[in-house]
């Protein structure tokens, strides 16, 4: 079954996060997702426009929504900021008719109109885990991510304030990665903020925020940290060297997109998934993927439970995303 969605790549995916765009398109093709890119889309304004001028900030986003072809009622964005700006604009226009009137008056200057509620904005991760059953995903797994120890990192607006997943302790990406055959750690800071644009404003504050995220992942001994947002990827990957210099650490944690991990599991060649664009090399991840350990070695050993020990939660069920 082919599922059709309007596609809003956003500015990051054009260049800085091209790996995310390439891998999402590759994975979508395997899953039978048809992505109809919005014609001549503009920047969503990220977190910057709302800081300066409110109505133009909404109008900027509304232009993209207005240009979505009438036969499509869902738009998917892989970037968390793009997704949330579209979601927020649609929702607030629906909630506040006065705002909707003003936005549409501005859009009229460009001969456009947007009816709030017409298009549902969705994050790429949400589309994958909500519109596909684990079986529908597992059926495409040709090269399971056996032996890879991964942490799922969501960041902020992928899960807050609008996601259907838990806002503080999301588990959907973990379950997806488990369905791909990976070993997933319980990453404590999975929904903490990467700092967004803070590197541009106050480096000390930004590096501290990035440091916490990296050191937490490092202690869990992961092979890679898996993200669903280009801003998170940029901060943790491109600034990892700066953070190491600042704190005297030697983190070398590859920061990859969940769509890249899906692509690997689907047996797609790494070159078609944007591997090689990361600053912290993912070569060791690819090495493990090419030469997975024998199956019995990675079978999770059931930890022996002491009679006097505290009760522990059951591991996440693999069968339910």
């Amino acid at each position, binding site marked *: 079954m082919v599922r059709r969605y309007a596609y809003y790549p956003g500015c990051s995916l054009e*260049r*800085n996060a091209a790996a995310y765009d390439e891998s999402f398109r590759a994975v979508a093709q395997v899953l039978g997702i048809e992505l109809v890119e919005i014609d001549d889309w503009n920047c969503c304004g990220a977190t910057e426009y709302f800081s*300066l001028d409110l109505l133009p900030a909404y109008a900027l986003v509304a232009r993209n929504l207005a240009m979505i072809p009438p036969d499509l009622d869902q738009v998917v964005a892989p970037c968390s900021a793009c997704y949330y700006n579209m979601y927020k604009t649609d929702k607030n226009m629906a909630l*506040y008719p006065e705002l909707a009137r003003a936005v549409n008056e501005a859009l009229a200057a460009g001969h456009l109109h947007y009816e709030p509620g017409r298009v549902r904005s969705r994050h790429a991760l949400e589309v994958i885990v909500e519109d596909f059953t684990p079986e529908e995903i597992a059926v495409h797994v040709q090269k399971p991510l056996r032996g890879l120890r991964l942490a799922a990192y969501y960041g902020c607006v992928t899960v807050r304030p609008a996601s259907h997943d838990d806002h503080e302790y999301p588990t959907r990406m973990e379950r997806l990665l488990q369905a791909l055959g990976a070993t997933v750690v319980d990453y404590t800071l999975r929904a903490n903020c990467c700092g967004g644009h803070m590197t541009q404003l*106050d480096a000390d504050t930004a590096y501290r925020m990035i440091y916490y995220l990296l050191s937490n992942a490092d202690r869990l001994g992961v092979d890679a940290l898996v993200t669903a947002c280009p801003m998170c990827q940029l901060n943790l990957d491109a600034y990892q060297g700066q953070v190491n210099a600042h704190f005297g650490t030697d983190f070398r944690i590859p920061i990859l997109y969940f769509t890249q991990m899906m692509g690997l599991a689907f047996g797609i060649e790494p070159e078609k998934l944007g591997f090689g664009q990361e600053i912290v090399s993912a070569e060791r991840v690819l090495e493990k993927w090419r030469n997975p350990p024998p199956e019995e070695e990675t079978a999770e050993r059931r930890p022996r439970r002491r009679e006097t020990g505290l009760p522990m939660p059951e591991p996440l069920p693999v069968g339910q995303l």
Partner: protein
Amino acid sequence: MPEETPTNPFLAEVIAIPGGERLKSCIQCGTCGGSCPSGEAMDHTPRELFAMIMAGMREEVLKSNTFWFCVSCYYCTIRCPQDIPITDIMYRLKRLAIQAGYYTASITGFSETFVGQVETYGRSFELGLATGHYLRHHPIQSIRMSPLMLGMVTRGRMSFTPKRIQGIRQLRAILRRAKELGGAW
């Protein structure tokens, strides 16, 4: 319940956004500040700032660095027991501070450079963004950033030439009209 008029026009100004009315129900519990990942850098915690708004301390509030350190992560917003749209209030305070002229260019410069690009090209491009902002406001840091920039360039992750959308005139007309209409939404 604090009154916004006529004794506290500042409160009325701050809450004039969708859902802003909720601010009047703040119970000063401090969950916002306790949830904030960048709270350490703030001169006033969000809770303090809200008390200052209730007290009508316009100048002190708008000169605070609190909202400039807000990273829009929405932790406070989802945790607030009174459903106050705190992140949106922080955005509102940024705009009021800019209107009042209480800000430093090194902080708002980034947003302005970004928005300038969007209004010129319709899209943003990272290289111009980073270099333009850094050279102007952090010349020393620009030198320290050069290995990072080099890494991004060699991996093809930075563009030198911006892409101009075809409908840039249409976009500018929309933004111009939006600015004329203004309003505190």
